[in-house]
C-alpha cells in the first residue's frame, strides 16, 4: 500500500512536469514526422532504409524511452536536494518500497510513449497489425535499462549534473549507437563493435522485428537487452542502498 501511495505521488510529480510532455511525447513525435517527411521527399529507392516507416517507428519508440532516465533521475535528484528524501527516510517506507515506488510509475509512461508513437506512425503509413502490440511489449526491457540508469544517476548526481548526463549525454549516446539514424555497420570498426556491445541497437532491432511480425528475430537481440536490464537494476539497487545508508 505504501509503495502504491509513493508511486502515485511520483507519477503525479513526473506527469505534471511540462518537460515530460515535451521530451517524452512531443519531441519523439516531431522527429518521427520530420524524418518520415524527409524520407517521402527522397525518390523511392534512394533514401536510407532506416527512414522507412516500418524501421523508423520502432527506432523512435526506443529513442523516446531514453528520456525515462532523465525523468526518473531528475525526480530523485530533486527529492534529494530538497530534503524530501530525508523526510521519507524517517517515515516507515522501506528501501525496497522506495526503489519500487520510483520505478513503477515509469512503466506506464514507457508504454504510453511507445503506443502514442506507433499510433502516430499509423497515420504516416505504417500498416496496422497486432504485431505492434508485441512491439510495445518488446520495449519493456530497454525501458527498464533506462529506468535503472536514471535511478543510479539520480542517487549520486546533483539535479544539474543529472540534466547534463541523462538529458544530453545518455540520450545522444543511445541514439548514435542505436541504428536508428544510420546503419552502424556502414561506419564499421570500433563504432560498430561498441554499438553491438551496448544494448541500444539490439533493442531497436528487437522492436523492428516485433513490429514486422518476425518473431524469430526478436529473441537473440532481446536477450542482450534483458541481460543489461537485470545487471543495471541490480547495480542501481546497490547504489541506492549504499547512498541510503551513508546519509
Amino acid at each position: 500500500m505504501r509503495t502504491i501511495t509513493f508511486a502515485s505521488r511520483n507519477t503525479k510529480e513526473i506527469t505534471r512536469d511540462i518537460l515530460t510532455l515535451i521530451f517524452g511525447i512531443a519531441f519523439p513525435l516531431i522527429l518521427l514526422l520530420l524524418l518520415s517527411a524527409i524520407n517521402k521527399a527522397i525518390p523511392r529507392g534512394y533514401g536510407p532504409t532506416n527512414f522507412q516507416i516500418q524501421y523508423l517507428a520502432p527506432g523512435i519508440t526506443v529513442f523516446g524511452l531514453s528520456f525515462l532516465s532523465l525523468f526518473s533521475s531528475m525526480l530523485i535528484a530533486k527529492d534529494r536536494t530538497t530534503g524530501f528524501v530525508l523526510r521519507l527516510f524517517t517515515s516507515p517506507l522501506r528501501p525496497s518500497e522506495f526503489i519500487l515506488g520510483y520505478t513503477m510509475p515509469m512503466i506506464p509512461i514507457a508504454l504510453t510513449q511507445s503506443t502514442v508513437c506507433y499510433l502516430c506512425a499509423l497515420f504516416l503509413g505504417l500498416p496496422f497489425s497486432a504485431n505492434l502490440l508485441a512491439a510495445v511489449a518488446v520495449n519493456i526491457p530497454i525501458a527498464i535499462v533506462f529506468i535503472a540508469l536514471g535511478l543510479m544517476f539520480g542517487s549520486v548526481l546533483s539535479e544539474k549534473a543529472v540534466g547534463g548526463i541523462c538529458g544530453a549525454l545518455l540520450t545522444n549516446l543511445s541514439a548514435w549507437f542505436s541504428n536508428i539514424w544510420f546503419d552502424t555497420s556502414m561506419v564499421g570498426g570500433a563504432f560498430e563493435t561498441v554499438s553491438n556491445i551496448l544494448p541500444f541497437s539490439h533493442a531497436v532491432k528487437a522492436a523492428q522485428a516485433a513490429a514486422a511480425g518476425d518473431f524469430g528475430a526478436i529473441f537473440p537481440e532481446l536477450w542482450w537487452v534483458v541481460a543489461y536490464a537485470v545487471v543495471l537494476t541490480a547495480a542501481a539497487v546497490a547504489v541506492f542502498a549504499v547512498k541510503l545508508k551513508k546519509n
Partner: protein
Amino acid sequence: MEAIKTEKLVKKYKDKTAVKGLELTVYQGELYGLLGVNGAGKSTTIKMLSCLTQPTSGEAWVMGRSIKNEAEQVKAIMNVSPQETAVAAKLSVRENLEFIARIYGCNKKESKEKARKMIEDFSMEEIAKCRAATLSGGWQRRLSIAMALITQPDVLFLDEPTLGLDVLARRELWKYIEELKGKMTIILTTHYLEEAESLCDRIGIMARGALCAEGTAEELKTKANTNDFEEAFITIAGENTK
C-alpha cells in the same frame, strides 16, 4: 516515563565529531528545547534519533525502542519537521498532507479527514489546492510542519521550525505548539531564544557535540547569574565553545 534516552551517543563524520558522547533524557509529554550555536550538533542529534543516520557508537531509545535495532518501530511513532523545508513540489497542499498520512498507514478516508483538520488548524483553506512549489517560503514551511503533525506522532522533532517565518506566522505557530503541549513529546531546536524561553518545559544547551547545561529557563538564568535568558545563553554557550 522516558520518551527519549541517549547513552554516550557519538556521531563522527570523516574528520569531524559532530556529537560527542551525548547523554540526554526527555520525559513523556515534555516540550524540550535544544539550543546551541551553529554546528553544535543539534541537527545531527535529531538525525540519529529519527533513524536517518546511524550513531558511530552509543545507543538511544525512543519510547523505549532502540534506534539501532528497532528503527522500524521508532519510525512509526515519531515524525520530523526537518531543518530544510521538505515538501513535494508538484503536489497540492492537500495532496502533500494526504500523502504523508497514507505513508504512515492511514486509509483513504482517514487521510482525507486528517488533511482537512490540518488545513483548518494551519489556516491553509485558501491555498489547499495550490501546488507546494507555488507557495511562498513561509507557507511551504508551515506545510512542512503540518506534514510532521498530521501523523499524530508520540514523539515530534521540530528542527528550527520558525526559520524563515514572519513574526505573525511565528507567533501563530507558537500558539499551536503550546496547544500540543502534553499531548506528545516535542523536541525543538531554535535560534530564537525568546521562543525557547516561553515555550519549553526544559532546555538543554549543546556545545561542541555535548550537553553543557540543562534545566528550566529560570534555572539556567540563575546558573548564569542573570535575569536575561539571552544573556544566560551567551554566558553558558560562550564558555563552552571557547
